[in-house]
C-alpha cells in the first residue's frame, strides 16, 4: 500500500494535528463530545433507520436478509469552493454524457470522427439497438446521474464511475441529513450547511420538464420492480416525497401506443415514467421475454413519443466501463473544453500492451469487469490473496476484452466511529446530477460511502460499506460558529 498516509478529509495531511481551514467546528465538536455520547447517538441513528424500514437486501445471501446500511455520524465536509469546482465538473461531464448518447443513437459523428472506436460502441452489449434512431422528448437521455468520485489530495478529485442508468442512494443522502439534524443539531448551528431536502422537488420538476410535448399537467410515476428489490425503500421514499404514484409493471398497460395506469376509478394516462428497472426488463416484447417486471408495449409507446422514460433506454452505453476510459475525449469532443474532473488512469485490457502491463502488475492494480457492478467481479490487487490473483489472471487471459485495470488509489479518509474508537476510514462520494429540458442541476450534497473495514477500499453497501452525511458549506451564509 501507499507509504504516505491517505489524505484525510478533516485533518488534511496533518495526521490529526490540525483541522483543515473552515472545518474547525467539526474538530471542536469531536473533541467536546464524549465517546459514550457519540456512541449513543450512533445507536439512536441506527434504531431510527431500522424503525423507518430503511433496509436493503443483499444479493447472494441465502436469506434475502433485510439489513440496514451502517451509518456513521461523523460527516464529510466539502467547502463552498470545493463544491463549486466539483459541481462545474459534474455538469460538464453530464452534459457530455447526454450529447454522447444522443450522438451514438443518432448521427454517430463521434464514431465517424474516430474519437471512440466504433466497435467498442456498436458491438457493446450496452448499445441498445431498439432505440437506435429514436430521440427522446427534449433530447435528454441521462436525466439522473450518480457520479462516483474519489479523492486523493486537497485538489485531486477523480471520476471513478458515471452511473447513468438507474443510480441509487439519493434517499440516503436525504435520510442521513434528517438523522443528523435530529441527533447532532448543534453541528448545524456551528456550520452553515446547504440543505439537500430540495432534491425531491427538483427531481419532480425535472421529470415534468421532460414530458412529451402536449402533455398538460404531465402525470409522472415511479416504476419499481417491487418491494423485494433492494432499493425499494428509496423508490417509495422518492415517490412519496415527489407526490407521484409508485407503480409496478402490472399497474401499467399500453393501449394504442399510450401508457395507462390502472386505478380504482379506471385507467389514467401516464406521461413520464421514472423507472427503476433495468433496460433488459422494461418491455418483454422487446427485451427479455421472461421479464415479469416490465410492461408489454412500453417501448412502442416510448418510440412513438407518447411517454418519456427516465433515464432513457440505452444510457448504459455512457457508463460502460469500456467506454469510461474514453470519457476525457468525449468531454473534449462535445464541450470543446478540457475536462474539469479527470478520470482515473485506466488500462484497457483489450489492448495488448495494456493487458501485458496489467498482468505484470496485478498485485498493485484494481481490475474490473467492464460489465460488472456493485463491487462484484473485481480484483483489488494489494489486498487479494495469491490464489485470488492467480484465478483472476486466468480469467483475464481468457477474455481480456472484458476487463479494465486501474491503479489502487490512496482514497481519502474520514474519521469514523468503530470498535477501535475514532479511526480514519476510506470514503468515496456520489453526488446526484439532474438534467431537465432547461439544463443541468446538482443538489449540494451527495452520498458518502465509507469502507468500514480497516484498510478496505470497497465502499459498496453490498460489501459491508456504510454511509455518512455529506455537508456542503454555504459560502454566502455566515456560519453562527463561535457566537454561542
Amino acid at each position, binding site marked *: 500500500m501507499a507509504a504516505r498516509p491517505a489524505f484525510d478529509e478533516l485533518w488534511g495531511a496533518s495526521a490529526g494535528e490540525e483541522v483543515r481551514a473552515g472545518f474547525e467546528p467539526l474538530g471542536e465538536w469531536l473533541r467536546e463530545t464524549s465517546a459514550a455520547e457519540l456512541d449513543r447517538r450512533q445507536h439512536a441513528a441506527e434504531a431510527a433507520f431500522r424503525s423507518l424500514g430503511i433496509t436493503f437486501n443483499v444479493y447472494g445471501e441465502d436469506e434475502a436478509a433485510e439489513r440496514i446500511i451502517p451509518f456513521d455520524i461523523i460527516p464529510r465536509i466539502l467547502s463552498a469552493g470545493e463544491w463549486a469546482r466539483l459541481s462545474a465538473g459534474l455538469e460538464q461531464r453530464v452534459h457530455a454524457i447526454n450529447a454522447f448518447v444522443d450522438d451514438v443513437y443518432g448521427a454517430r459523428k463521434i464514431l465517424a470522427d474516430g474519437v471512440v472506436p466504433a466497435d467498442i*460502441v456498436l*458491438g457493446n452489449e450496452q448499445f441498445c*439497438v431498439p432505440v*437506435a434512431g429514436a430521440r427522446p422528448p427534449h433530447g435528454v437521455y441521462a436525466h439522473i446521474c450518480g457520479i462516483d468520485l474519489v479523492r486523493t489530495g486537497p485538489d485531486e478529485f477523480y471520476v471513478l464511475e458515471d452511473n447513468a442508468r438507474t443510480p441509487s442512494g439519493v434517499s440516503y443522502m436525504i435520510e442521513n441529513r434528517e438523522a443528523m439534524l435530529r441527533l447532532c443539531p448543534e453541528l448545524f448551528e456551528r456550520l452553515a450547511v446547504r440543505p439537500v431536502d430540495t432534491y425531491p422537488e427538483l427531481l419532480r420538476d425535472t421529470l415534468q420538464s421532460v414530458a412529451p410535448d402536449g402533455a398538460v399537467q404531465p402525470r409522472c410515476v415511479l416504476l419499481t420492480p417491487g418491494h423485494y428489490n433492494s432499493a425499494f425503500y428509496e423508490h417509495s421514499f422518492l415517490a412519496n416525497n415527489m407526490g407521484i404514484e409508485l407503480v409496478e409493471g402490472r399497474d401499467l398497460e*399500453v393501449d394504442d*401506443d399510450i401508457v395507462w395506469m390502472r386505478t380504482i376509478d379506471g385507467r389514467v394516462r401516464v406521461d413520464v415514467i421514472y423507472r427503476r428497472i433495468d433496460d433488459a426488463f422494461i418491455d418483454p*416484447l422487446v427485451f427479455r421475454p421472461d421479464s415479469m417486471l416490465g410492461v408489454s408495449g412500453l417501448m*412502442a409507446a416510448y*418510440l412513438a413519443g407518447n411517454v418519456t422514460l427516465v433515464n432513457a433506454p440505452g444510457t448504459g452505453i455512457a457508463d460502460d466501463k469500456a467506454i469510461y476510459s474514453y470519457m476525457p475525449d468525449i468531454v473534449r469532443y462535445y464541450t470543446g473544453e478540457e475536462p474539469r474532473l479527470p478520470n482515473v488512469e485506466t488500462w484497457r485490457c483489450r489492448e495488448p500492451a495494456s493487458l501485458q502491463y496489467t498482468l505484470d502488475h496485478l498485485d498493485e492494480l484494481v481490475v474490473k469487469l467492464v460489465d460488472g457492478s456493485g463491487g462484484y467481479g473485481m480484483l483489488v490487487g494489494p489486498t487479494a490473496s495469491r490464489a485470488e490473483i492467480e484465478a483472476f489472471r486466468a480469467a483475464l487471459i481468457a477474455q481480456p476484452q472484458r476487463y479494465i485495470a486501474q491503479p489502487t488509489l490512496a482514497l481519502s479518509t474520514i474519521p469514523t466511529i468503530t470498535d477501535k474508537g475514532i479511526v480514519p476510514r476510506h470514503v468515496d462520494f456520489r453526488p446526484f446530477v439532474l438534467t431537465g429540458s432547461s439544463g443541468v442541476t446538482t443538489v449540494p450534497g451527495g452520498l458518502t460511502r465509507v469502507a468500514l473495514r480497516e484498510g478496505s477500499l470497497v465502499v459498496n453497501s453490498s460489501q459491508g460499506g456504510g454511509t455518512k452525511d455529506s455537508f456542503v458549506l454555504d459560502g454566502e451564509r455566515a456560519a453562527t460558529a463561535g457566537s454561542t
Partner: protein
Amino acid sequence: MRLSVNHTTTYRYSEPTRRIIQLLRVTPSSFQGQTVLSWRIDVDCDVRLREGRDGFGNVTHMLYVDQPVQVLTLAVSGRVLTEDNAGVVRAVPGDLPHQVFLRETPLTAAGNALDWLAMDISEEGGAKLDILHGLNRRIHDRMRFDVAATGVGTSAEDAFGAGHGVCQDFAHIFIAVARRLGIPARYVSGHLFRRDGAHQQPAAHAWVEAFVDDLGWVAFDPTNGISTDDAYLRVACGLDYREAAPVVGARSGGGTEELSVEVAVHQARSQSQWQVQN
C-alpha cells in the same frame, strides 16, 4: 419476379381473452432490389394498429385488442417486385452499421461444437465470401430439415448438436459461426417463392445476411444451401429470431392458445391481367 404473398396467422384461445398486445414485423420495406407494390394487414376483430420502425429499420405494427376474443386472425397480404442481385442487399432503409451485428445473443451463442466448426473453416482460409459460401454449404450438408425437432427457444449450439432443425436453426448456426469468425451476420425473416411448386407453406422462411467488406450485406439461405435470388422477399432483420420474428405478443386471459400459420407465395400476375380476369 413479381411475388404475391398471403400470410395468415390464426390464434384460437380456450377462453375469451381480456387484452392482447402484439408486436408485428410482417411488412417489408422497399430497397434496391425489392419494391413493395402493395401491402396490407387485415384483422378479423376490432383492433388498433400503430405503425412504427424499430432500431433495425424494420417496419413494425403494434396491435392492440381491448375486448374479449376467442379467435384472432391476422391476414397479411401484398405484392412485391424482386430482382436477382446474387444475394447482395443494398440500401435497406434505416440500416445500422455492420459492427452492431457482431455480438452474441443467447440464441446465437457458439459452444464447443460451433467453435470447432468455426476453427475448421478458418483453417481452410480463403476470401471472406468463399468462407461464407463454404459455411453455408456445410450447414446445408450437415443439418437435416425437421420441423418437429426444435422450438423457438432452441439455441444454435443445441440445434447443431442435434443435427436437425428448421430454417431458424440453420440461420442461427450460420450467424453464430460467422460472428465467431469476426464476420457481422444477421437473421432475416421473409418469404420464399418455391420454384418446385410448393406454394402453400406452413411458416414464413428465414435466412441470413453476412457483411463482406467490399460488397456490403450478402444474403445466404443455409436451409437450401444457396445465396438468395429473386425468389426471396425480405421482411425483417435482427440479431436473431427474437428480434426479427413476425409476431411477438402478450395477453391476459384467454387460457391456452392454439396457433396456426399458413403462407402462400405465388408468382403474381400483373395488375392489368388481374383486372381483366376479374
